[in-house]
C-alpha cells in the first residue's frame, strides 16, 4: 500500500453535489498535481463526514481539520498554505473548530464504522475493511437457527422507532415452511428531522447489503427488497452499484460461496407517503396498492408480501447485524445498557453549535449528545427544548436533559426514542408554533383509512391553528389532548397513535406558554 502524508476525505452527498463538489475535486487534484503533491496527499471521495457544513466540506487527516463551504477559487490557497506549508487556512475552517473537536472518528462505532473513511462505491474497500466476512461465516460456519439465536442474544432492537427485538422477529419467520420468504428493508425514511438511514446507505451501502444477506440466510429468504424513497437518488445509485458489484463477485446470485444458498436483492422506489414507514402499509405499496396499513394479526412475519412470510427491518437495524455475527453477541452487548444494547445513530439539528451525525452508546444522555457531539448550543442561544424522534416524538424540556436515551428509560417519562432525530430549539422559539407545524404534518400524512386518525388529525390542526392565532382557550388545549388520547386508543396504526406524544409533552412541560397565548373563558 502506498504511504500518504495526508488524507483528504471529501463528503459526497446531495448538498455537496449541488454545490459542485465534483468540479471541486477535479480542480483540487489538478492543483495538487501542479504542486507536485499527488503522491503525498490522498483524496478520497466518501460519505458523511459527521458534520453538516455548508456546501463542499472536507476533513484532512491526520490533522483532523474540517473545512466547509469551499469554492473553486479557494483551491490554490488551500494547496499552498495547508498541503504545502502545513498551515491550515483559518478562514475556511468550520467556525467551531478550536473550541470543539469532533469526536466522531475517535468513537468505537458499529453502524458508522466505515462511514467517511472508505470509498462507499468500492466493494474492494469494504472487503478490505473486513466486509463480507460475517456473511461468509453465517453461510459456511453457522446454521440458520444459530444466526437467529446470536441476534436474539445480542439484544438488538429494531431501530425504526418501536424497538421490537430483531432476533425475536426473525424467530417467528425462520421455522415456517414456505415456498418463498422475503426480507424487506424499510428505507422509506420520512420522519421529519431523520435522515440517519440516508447517511448510513450513502456512507456504507455494502454494510446494509451484508446485513440483509445474513437476515435472508437466517430466515431462509431467497429474495430481498429495499423499499427506498424516490428522493434519495444518491443512495439508490450507490446501492445499485453495490448490488451489481456483489453479483459480479458472486456474493449475490445462486449457490453463493458453494453453500447452495441463493439470494437476490432488488431496489424498489416509493412514491412519497409517510405512512409507508408502517410495515404493512409498506408491503401494500410494494404490491402496487395505496399504502394503507393492514390488520394485524397475521403479522408480516407469517403473512407478508404476497402473503408469504416476510421480515421487515429498518436500515439501521440490519446495518448492526454484520458486527454481531462477526464479533459475537457478547462483544455487541458491551455497547449500550443491559436492557438496550448496542449503539444508536442520531441526527442532531437546530440551534446547536455543530449540527451533525453521531453514533453513541444506547443510554447516553441528551445532555452528553448535545454538549459533546454537537458542541453545545450555538453561541448566544439558550436551550429551551428538544424534539426527540421527529413528529412522532416528544418535546423534552431542560429538566429531562439527563434522562438516558434508550427505549426503556424514555418509556418512564412517556417518551419515545423514535427514529433518532434530535431537533434542538432555543429560548426564543415558540412551542405552540412547533406543535402547530407537527400537527399540520400529521394532517397531511394521515392515510385516511380509519376514522379516528382521518378526522382526528383534522380536528387537532383546526384547534392548534385557533390557539396559535390567540383565539383559543385552555378548554381547547384540553380538548386537543382528549382527542389525541382517543386517537391513541382507537387508531388503526401507529400514525394515529402518535400525535399524543408531542401534544402531551408540549402541554405538560410548557403549560405556561399555552396559558399565555389562550384567552380566558368569559
Amino acid at each position, binding site marked *: 500500500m502506498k504511504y500518504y502524508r495526508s488524507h483528504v476525505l471529501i463528503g459526497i452527498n*446531495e*448538498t455537496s*453535489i*449541488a454545490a459542485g463538489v465534483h468540479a471541486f475535486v477535479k480542480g483540487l487534484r489538478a492543483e495538487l498535481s501542479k504542486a507536485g503533491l499527488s503522491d503525498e496527499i490522498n483524496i478520497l471521495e466518501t460519505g458523511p463526514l459527521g458534520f*453538516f457544513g*455548508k456546501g463542499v466540506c472536507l476533513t484532512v487527516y491526520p490533522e483532523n481539520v474540517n473545512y466547509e463551504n469551499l469554492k473553486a477559487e479557494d483551491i490554490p490557497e488551500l494547496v499552498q498554505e495547508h498541503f504545502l506549508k502545513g498551515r491550515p487556512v483559518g478562514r475556511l475552517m468550520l467556525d467551531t473548530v478550536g473550541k470543539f473537536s469532533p469526536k466522531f472518528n475517535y468513537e468505537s462505532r458499529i453502524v458508522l464504522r466505515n462511514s467517511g473513511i472508505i470509498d462507499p462505491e468500492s466493494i474492494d474497500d469494504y472487503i478490505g475493511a473486513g466486509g463480507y466476512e460475517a456473511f461468509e461465516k453465517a453461510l459456511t460456519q453457522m446454521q440458520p437457527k444459530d444466526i437467529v439465536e446470536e441476534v436474539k442474544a445480542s439484544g438488538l432492537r429494531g431501530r425504526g422507532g418501536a424497538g421490537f427485538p430483531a432476533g425475536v422477529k426473525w424467530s417467528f419467520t425462520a421455522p415456517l415452511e414456505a415456498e418463498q420468504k422475503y426480507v424487506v428493508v424499510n428505507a422509506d*425514511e*420520512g*420522519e*421529519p*428531522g*431523520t*435522515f440517519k438511514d*440516508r447517511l448510513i446507505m450513502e456512507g456504507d451501502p455494502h454494510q446494509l447489503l451484508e446485513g440483509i444477506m445474513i437476515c435472508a440466510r437466517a430466515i431462509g429468504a431467497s429474495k430481498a427488497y429495499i423499499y427506498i*424513497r*424516490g*428522493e*434519495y*437518488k444518491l443512495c439508490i445509485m450507490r446501492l445499485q452499484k453495490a448490488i451489481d458489484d456483489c453479483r459480479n463477485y458472486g456474493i449475490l446470485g445462486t449457490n453463493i460461496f458453494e453453500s447452495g444458498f441463493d439470494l437476490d436483492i432488488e431496489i*424498489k*422506489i*416509493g*412514491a*412519497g*407517503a*409517510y405512512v409507508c414507514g408502517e410495515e404493512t402499509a409498506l408491503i401494500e*405499496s*410494494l*404490491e*402496487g*396498492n*395505496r*399504502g394503507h396499513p393492514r390488520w394485524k394479526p397475521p403479522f408480516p412475519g407469517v403473512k407478508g408480501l404476497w402473503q408469504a412470510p416476510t421480515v421487515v427491518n429498518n436500515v439501521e437495524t440490519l446495518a448492526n447485524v454484520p458486527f454481531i455475527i462477526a464479533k459475537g453477541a457478547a462483544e455487541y452487548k458491551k455497547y449500550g445498557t443491559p436492557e438496550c444494547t448496542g449503539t444508536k445513530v442520531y*441526527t442532531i*439539528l*437546530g440551534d446547536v453549535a455543530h*449540527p*451533525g*451525525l453521531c453514533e453513541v452508546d444506547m443510554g447516553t444522555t441528551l445532555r452528553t449528545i448535545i454538549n459533546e457531539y454537537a458542541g453545545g448550543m450555538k453561541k448566544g442561544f439558550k436551550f429551551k427544548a428538544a*424534539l426527540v424522534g*421527529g*413528529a412522532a416524538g416528544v418535546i423534552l424540556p431542560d429538566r429531562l436533559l439527563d434522562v438516558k436515551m434508550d427505549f426503556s428509560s424514555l418509556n418512564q417519562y412517556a417518551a419515545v426514542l423514535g427514529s433518532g*432525530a434530535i*431537533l434542538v*430549539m432555543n429560548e426564543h*422559539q415558540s412551542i405552540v*408554533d*412547533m406543535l402547530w*407545524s*407537527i400537527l*399540520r*404534518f400529521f394532517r*397531511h*400524512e394521515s*392515510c385516511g383509512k380509519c376514522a379516528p386518525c382521518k378526522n382526528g388529525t383534522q380536528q387537532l390542526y383546526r384547534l392548534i391553528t385557533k390557539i396559535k392565532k390567540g383565539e383559543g382557550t385552555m378548554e381547547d388545549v384540553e380538548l386537543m389532548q382528549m382527542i389525541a388520547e382517543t386517537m391513541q386508543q382507537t387508531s388503526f396504526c401507529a400514525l394515529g397513535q402518535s400525535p399524543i406524544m408531542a401534544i402531551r409533552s408540549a402541554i405538560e412541560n410548557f403549560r405556561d406558554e399555552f396559558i399565555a397565548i389562550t384567552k380566558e373563558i368569559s
Partner: protein
Amino acid sequence: MYKEICAKYAPTKDNLIYILHEIQDTHPQHYISEEAVQAISEYLKVPENHIYGVLTFYSMYSTKPRGKNIIRLCESPPCYIKGSDNVLRKLKSILNVSVGETTKDGKFTLELCACLGVCGNAPVMMINDDVYGDLSEEKVEEIIDKIRGRN
C-alpha cells in the same frame, strides 16, 4: 407512447408504481393523463379506479399538468423552524403563484412537501431532481433567476 413505457415492465400490479413514475417523468408536463391511466389499465388488467386510487394517494404523482420545473419546498418542522414559511412567501411573490399552481409561462410549479431528509441544511427544497439547501429569501431568488435564464 404510453404502451411503449408499459411494455418495459412485466404486466403485474406491483409494477404500477414504476410505470406511473416513468410516465410522469417522461411527460413534458410531468403528470399522468386520463389516456395514460386507460393505457395502464389495459396493460395491467386492473381497473382504472384502482389506478386513480394509487395515483392520488402518493404525493409524488399529479393528475394535473404541471410546469417544466417542479419546486417542492419542505414544510416539515425542522425546515419550518428555520424559516421555510419566509422562503415560501418569497417564492409565491417572485413566481406570482399560489401553492399547487403553475406559472403562466409554464416554467415552474410550486408545491409543498414533507421532509426530504436533508434537514442538516434546512430549509430545503428540491427542483426536479436537485436539492437546494440553506435557503434564504435572497438565495431562492438567485436560484429561480438562474433556472429561468437556463431555459
